[in-house]
């Protein structure tokens, strides 16, 4: 009997110890493996989506340069899943990787609420290397830079040369850009011209979400004013963007009734169902991934009516890491101009460092989908002329409300006014603490 008791106690004790160990393990799984015998320092990165460092061979290169460093990455597919976990980990200061990526839609919130948990990287990265607005986005009011920019998303318009030609529009990228230069209304007008002779079954643009995203990204102020107040409801630029998109979406043949990044939208890319789309550099990679082989070379890139920015990320280093110095060094190296140029060449993530724009990897960049279009130069021009946009902590929630609960409703038969009211109601409820 006593023996049995001992066994049970031992089992309970092991179970308990296992649980405790399980909890404890969490904290230092990202630490160095000093007892591994190799003497190597492991640096872990928490990333989302396809950021491409690994694909571009940057880890291998860094490990070759620094033989005592091992790099491991942990990738979550979608930022919607990645970001809540990141916030959770930051607030509890546990379970963090040595380097954590932050999306531009979240950077203002992280800078505002989590700066105390993050390393000041202004001593590690060189401010003069980066686009001014990119550096500012990750810098707090008291001058702490919490993240180094990896890439930006200077916006252009990608269009199908074959469909434009069939509809009787010019196909030369300079002429196309001239058609709508300076005004988003003109872009919609070009759409109306397209519609007159459009090849059957195609629309001018793909989705209301893509259009409103492009228009809003070219505004200096959209959802917040420079003092940090929420102004999306009263900002005439936001309402104008909404109304223009809604008007275009309501006209049959101008804007397809798709939601971006869902499987049905992918299918419209594969089937060449639309002629133009808002197009940051990373979108070319997406188009390439979803297109059929015969679409290769049929796309081209023209400057957008007004330059804007869609997307981009930052690398931040949590203070709780065990190798913050090494991590900061790696983050600075990964985001330095040379590496960003390589990343663009392989992955299509556009550099946030103007120095890279002169490098052959960027100037000579080509994409299978756009043939010999000098995409590096086009996007570099857009990046330099993008406005220094005011970004706020809840930008993502507002943007999502405007598109997913707003303009998309117009394609489902609601009036622009109803759609706006639904969007506002949803956003206000989501912002209300």
């Amino acid at each position, binding site marked *: 009997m006593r023996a049995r*008791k001992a066994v*049970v*106690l031992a089992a*309970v004790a092991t*179970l*308990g110890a296992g649980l405790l160990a399980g909890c404890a393990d969490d904290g230092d799984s990202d630490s160095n493996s000093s007892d591994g015998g190799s003497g190597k320092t492991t640096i872990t990165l928490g990333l989302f989506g396809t950021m491409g460092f690994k694909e571009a061979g940057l880890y291998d290169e860094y490990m070759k340069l620094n033989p005592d460093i091992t790099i491991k990455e942990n990738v979550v597919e*979608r930022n*919607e899943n990645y970001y*809540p976990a990141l*916030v*959770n980990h930051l*607030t*509890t200061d546990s379970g963090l990787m040595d380097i954590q990526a932050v999306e531009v839609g979240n950077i203002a*919130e992280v800078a505002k*609420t*989590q700066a105390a948990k993050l390393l000041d990287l202004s001593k590690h990265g060189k401010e003069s290397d980066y686009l001014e607005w990119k550096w500012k986005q990750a810098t707090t009011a008291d001058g702490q830079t919490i993240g180094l920019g990896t890439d930006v998303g200077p916006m252009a318009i990608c269009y199908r040369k074959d469909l434009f030609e069939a509809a009787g529009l010019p196909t030369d990228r300079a002429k196309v850009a001239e058609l709508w230069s300076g005004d988003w209304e003109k872009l919609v007008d070009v759409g109306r011209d397209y519609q007159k002779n459009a090849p059957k079954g195609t629309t001018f643009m793909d989705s209301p979400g893509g259009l409103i995203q492009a228009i809003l990204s070219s505004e200096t102020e959209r959802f917040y004013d420079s003092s940090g107040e929420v102004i999306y409801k009263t900002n005439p630029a936001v309402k104008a963007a909404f109304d223009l998109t809604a008007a275009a979406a309501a006209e049959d043949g101008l804007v397809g009734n798709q*939601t971006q*990044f*869902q*499987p*049905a939208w992918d*299918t*419209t890319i594969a089937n060449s169902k639309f002629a133009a789309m808002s197009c940051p550099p990373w979108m070319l990679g997406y188009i390439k991934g979803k297109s059929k082989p015969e679409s290769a070379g049929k796309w081209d890139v023209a400057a957008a009516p007004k330059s804007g920015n869609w997307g981009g990320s930052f690398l931040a280093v949590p203070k709780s890491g065990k190798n913050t110095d090494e991590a900061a060094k790696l983050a600075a190296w990964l985001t330095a101009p040379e590496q960003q140029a390589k990343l663009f060449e392989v992955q299509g993530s556009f550099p946030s460092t103007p120095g890279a724009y002169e490098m052959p990897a960027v100037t000579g960049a080509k994409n299978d989908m756009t043939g010999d279009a000098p995409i590096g130069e086009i996007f570099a021009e857009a990046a330099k002329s993008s406005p220094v946009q005011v970004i706020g902590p809840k930008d993502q*929630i507002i943007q*999502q409300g405007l598109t*997913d*609960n707003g303009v*998309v*409703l117009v394609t*489902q038969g609601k009036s622009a006014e109803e759609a706006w009211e*639904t969007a506002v*109601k*949803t956003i206000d*409820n*989501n*912002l*209300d*603490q």
Partner: protein
Amino acid sequence: MTTGHDTAAASPAKGGAAPGRPPAGAPETEREQRRRARLSRRWQRDVRWSPYAFVSPFFLLFLAFGLFPLVYTGWASLHQVELTAPTDMNWVGLRNYTRIFDDDFFWNAARNTLTIGVISTVPQLLMALGLAHILNYRLRASTFYRVAMLAPYATSIAAASLVFVLLFGRDYGMINWALGAVGIDNIDWQNDKWPSQIAVSTIVIWRWTGYNALIYLAAMQAIPQDLYESAALDGANRWQQFFHVTLPALRPTILFTVVVSTIGASQLFGEPLLFDANKGASGGSQHQFQTLGLYLYEQGWVNQHLGRASAIAWTMFLILIVIGIVNYVISRRLRASG
């Protein structure tokens, strides 16, 4: 465990007679007595406390992962608190609860939960009953059918929902393609209210029907065969046998599955979350299939309002308790009448 009685019987020997020479057969020194007493105390403690030690793992885990979160959620629901700074709490009393009363999104979610619950649970249990009845006959390869019925249940919700999203696609989905073949126009399964709720329910039905059918089948096999024989002798056909023998005998089982399905339906989360093309938690562009679970998740993890989310969680908890009481009352009535 009779040790307690043994030592209790031995103790009078200690007190009575003067400590003379211990009997030759059982030499008991004082040391020996102390040892026995110590052992006896230890056994008594053992008998008394060991059971608690044995059940303690459950209670410790329950305290850590059940009770504490419950209480803490209640505490958080009385505050304005954001996920970005969970320690920074701002007392607001019952405000999070009172505003639920005029929160259109909450009531919309509650209505959706109810309607999706009904259109998924009712057909599901009826179909399960029918399937169980069929499987209860002697069939060739019956084990195969039984295992096959459980296959959807073993599939992960995520995988299943993703496939259903493709099937229910508006432009390129297989279901609309099939409907088109018989002349029905494309249905927007994502964005129209009833189609989207039916689509979400379909995922639930697909997943749980087999599971419930197996429960019914088990209960059916416990019904004595003589009942059917005598019913047959009285001239009842199979349909009448089902109605007058099988169904009454299954009443407790049906009640059990209704309770379990109701609780499952009120917590519906994964299917509508994954069915949303925007990969958000708003349950469609007009919140047309946002359930309470999804709304709670949206407030807490997307919008980062922990206080509001906690209040929603507690309100859901109270609703579940009410449902539980209603079920209890109904089942007592049924039992009394049966």
